[in-house]
């Protein structure tokens, strides 16, 4: 057995074990911990498969950001945890759930195993046309040139998710500051970290966004790092989220998707199809769209974690 296949085997076994443990554990917080560990292992698996872009996204969004959101949810559920675990579903219901999930897992397994070998792929076609777009990273080319509509809808969906979170606010607090005001020792270790790390993190986040055209990286991963730096400063009490009624905030939140839509429709007039780019300008337009999406995504992702408004504007 070669080293690579031994690593793949160990990773696969660990992934299945952590997934099973995450499902089986009764405590909410432990399940969240399992989920985060699962995501980090999964990103190692993506690296082993040479899918660095997917690995970065999995680590930043799948494991990091979703993990933070789930930890927040678990903390809110803590008060009802005892009642929840005392409650036990009846035997027929549990059998029904077991059968339903086995059928779904089995169907997916059959689907994956019955794929023709070699798997049909568009990768050679993408690689062939990469020079005409001017990008070096095939993943960015697929995301913004070939499947631009998916990426556009994705960037709108996260804004909708934020509106969904905000709409949990009670009426008197609408337009107020998201989440509780964090208090931390201004001379403590967290405040120190929140002063030392953001300058490095901001550079790394912008770098990952910028190299996305030619190397693994991109706006989503970069924006997650930027959002994490802002959240760190918020948690240390050094910064506060803006009230959700601020006009500049709302403009920035829709600016990225709106510019994407505008360029997409301009493509219909100039290049002959919605979301098509005119010859020779593809890379420029893609970078403009990504640059406009970075502030939108950073604000959206950070404010998703910050939560619904809990304090009024004075």
């Amino acid at each position, binding site marked *: 057995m070669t080293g690579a296949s031994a690593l793949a085997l160990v990773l696969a076994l660990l992934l299945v074990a952590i997934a099973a443990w995450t499902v089986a554990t009764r405590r909410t917080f432990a399940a969240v911990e399992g989920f985060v560990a699962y995501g980090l292992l999964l990103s190692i698996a993506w690296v082993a498969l040479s899918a660095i872009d997917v690995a970065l996204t999995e680590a930043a969004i799948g494991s990091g950001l979703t993990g933070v959101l789930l930890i927040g949810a678990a903390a809110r559920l803590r008060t009802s945890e005892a009642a929840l675990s005392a409650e036990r579903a009846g035997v027929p219901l549990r059998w029904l759930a077991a059968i339903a999930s086995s059928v779904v897992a089995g169907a997916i397994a059959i689907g994956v195993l019955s794929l023709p070998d070699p798997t049909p792929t568009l990768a050679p076609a993408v690689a062939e046309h990469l020079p005409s777009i001017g990008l070096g990273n095939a993943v960015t080319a697929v995301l913004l040139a070939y499947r631009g509509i998916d990426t556009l809808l994705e960037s709108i969906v996260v804004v909708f998710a934020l509106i969904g979170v905000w709409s949990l606010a009670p009426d008197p607090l609408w337009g107020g500051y998201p989440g509780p005001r964090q208090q931390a020792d201004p001379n403590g*270790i*967290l405040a120190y970290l929140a002063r030392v790390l953001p300058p*490095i993190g901001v550079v790394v986040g912008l770098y990952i966004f910028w190299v996305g055209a030619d190397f693994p990286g991109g706006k989503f991963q970069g924006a997650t790092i930027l959002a994490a730096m802002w959240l760190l400063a918020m948690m240390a009490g050094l910064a506060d989220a803006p009230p959700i009624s601020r006009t500049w905030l709302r403009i920035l939140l829709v600016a990225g998707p709106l510019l994407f839509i505008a360029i997409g429709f301009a493509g219909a007039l100039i290049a002959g199809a919605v979301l098509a780019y005119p010859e020779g300008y593809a890379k420029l337009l893609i970078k403009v769209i990504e640059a406009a999406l970075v502030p939108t995504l950073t604000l959206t992702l950070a404010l998703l974690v910050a939560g619904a408004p809990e304090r009024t504007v004075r």
Partner: protein
Amino acid sequence: MSVFLDVFTVAAVSAGAFFFLAGSIGLLRFPDTLSRLHALTKADNLGLGLVVLGLLPRASGLLAALKLVVVWLLVLIASAMVSQMVARVARRGGSPS
């Protein structure tokens, strides 16, 4: 020359792996939160440091080598801070187990 570098890489990475193993065993076997943290920081600080040291001769250039060192330094900062915060919660009597 390259044989020496290979031996150096193998020795340093193996030593790093040993510290990771020792740290993991300590994390599983030690009785309380503070000693477990103690075991864990050995893996982060020394283990990763030795792995990075061993990989330095293999880096494709000065920039790549610098990136490896920066990764180690960032992990050092993060693990030191997080250990402090976990230890503080543990001392206050909260159980982060």
